[in-house]
């Protein structure tokens, strides 16, 4: 039901018209997600299934990336601190960097690549092979079943994955710190927790909810509106990743401004 008669003459320019029409379509899509999310029937089974797909199946990649990020960041930070004889501050520096920026960003970018592309390709393929139409004619609301469940899953699983990334990255960092500075685990953990504040954790969790929603909504939008043909499926997967990543960076910048304003000087 997505056929549209294009305007014969552009109102502004063709490109601007297209941009504003796309913005309108995106807004309507996001509005519909919120509307359908609160209306029964609720797709609990599908939400649980998607949470498993998004959360559990991302664990190996997230674990590896988080662990390596912790090690590499620690190793790269050490020379600068040692110049000032401040290597004892390493756990605090690592904790702040990981909790405030690295873990939310790394988790979101990995998820955008893995989950976002998967959602875009899956829904795109379902659209092209008329599976979404088949769902609609069997009196099932495909938007609620496919889109709302996936957006729910990404919105709630990305913050959990982010917290897991923090733990794994801090573990990687500890191994590096322990090998080089012979710091005990207890001292390391104490320094880590002394460095981070409630605002750091709170802002990262909220950010991750936003990143998760973005990944799910963009992946679903691109897949649900993919054009016919296999080329459209590939394009949906690709643009889902690129658009999600772009939006995540923009959101990170906005979040940084807000949190900086809230942080006591």
């Amino acid at each position, binding site marked *: *039901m997505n*056929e549209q*008669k*294009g305007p014969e003459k552009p109102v502004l320019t063709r490109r601007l018209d297209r941009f504003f029409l796309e913005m309108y379509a995106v807004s309507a899509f996001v509005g519909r997600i919120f509307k359908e999310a609160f209306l029964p029937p609720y797709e609990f089974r599908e939400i649980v299934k998607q949470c498993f797909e998004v959360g559990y199946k991302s664990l190996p990649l997230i674990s590896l990336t988080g662990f390596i990020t912790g090690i590499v960041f620690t190793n790269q930070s050490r020379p600068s601190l040692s110049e000032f004889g401040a290597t004892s501050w390493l756990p605090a520096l690592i904790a702040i960097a990981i909790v405030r920026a690295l873990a939310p960003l790394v988790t979101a970018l990995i998820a955008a690549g893995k989950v976002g592309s998967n959602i875009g390709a*899956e829904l795109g*393929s*379902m659209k092209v*092979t*008329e*599976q979404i*139409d*088949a*769902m*609609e*004619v*069997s*009196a*099932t*609301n495909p938007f609620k079943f496919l889109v709302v469940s996936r957006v729910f899953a990404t919105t709630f699983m990305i913050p959990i994955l982010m917290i897991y990334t923090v733990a794994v990255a801090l573990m990687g960092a500890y191994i590096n710190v322990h090998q080089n500075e012979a710091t005990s685990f207890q001292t390391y953990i104490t320094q880590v927790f002394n460095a981070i504040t409630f605002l750091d954790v709170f802002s990262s969790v909220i950010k991750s909810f936003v990143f998760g929603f973005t990944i799910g909504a963009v992946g679903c939008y691109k897949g649900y509106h993919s054009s016919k043909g296999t080329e459209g499926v590939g394009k949906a997967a690709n643009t889902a990743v690129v658009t999600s990543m772009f939006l995540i960076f923009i959101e990170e910048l906005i979040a940084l401004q807000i949190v900086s304003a809230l942080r006591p000087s």
Partner: protein
Amino acid sequence: MKKSINHDKLIISIRNLKKAFGDLEVLRGVDLDVYQGENLVVLGRSGTGKSVLIKIISGLLTADEGSVKVLGQEVGELSPRELAELRLKIGFSFQNSALYDSMTVRENLEFPLVRNVRNLSRADINREVEEALEDVGLAHTINQMPSELSGGQRKRIGIARTLILKPEIMLYDEPTAGLDPITSGEINNLINQVQVQHNTTSIIITHDLTCAKSTGDRIAMLLDGQFQRQGSFAEVFDSQDERVKSFYDYNFIDG
């Protein structure tokens, strides 16, 4: 069992239906009546709007102009809930079967059932699924994935999935497209079996004249966006119209 066509009871009634995509006018004032229990075949070349017609009937597309009444209800004026209720009475067999790739055959058949029929026990669901698969002769595929099935098997499973809700109307979109003649024959027999066993009213969209001849109680030929010829197979093709003659010749002689 015999076919029981009731010419006094209109199931689908279409008047002056128009549909365009951009500048391309696909349907230009279509009129059509389909009676209870009959198999109506819609013939026409590719791109003439045959599939668009059944998508409008099922509410997947909206008409630009005209009236489409299904079981006495004007499709374009129904609320989403009313449309969902009407769709439970319509089975739609898609050209490419549209089986859900990520589900087994059993899950594909269960999907419409568990979502639309309440208070069914596990045993009831299993029985319904097994019966639907036996109807199409594919009970042994119950635990297979769609990717493991042949084209003909996918078509049959697609039909079984629509039959599980016991629809009053069946819409078949190119049921024999891409199939070999023997498998096409099996699908044609299945369409006739469904008509008799389930007493369905069907619209069969095709450009395959063998399918039209063996399944159609009545043929309607879509030419230039309108039904210009309707009647029995012999009546429709007893014509000096070059477009009709060439359609017949390509199917039975050249093609």
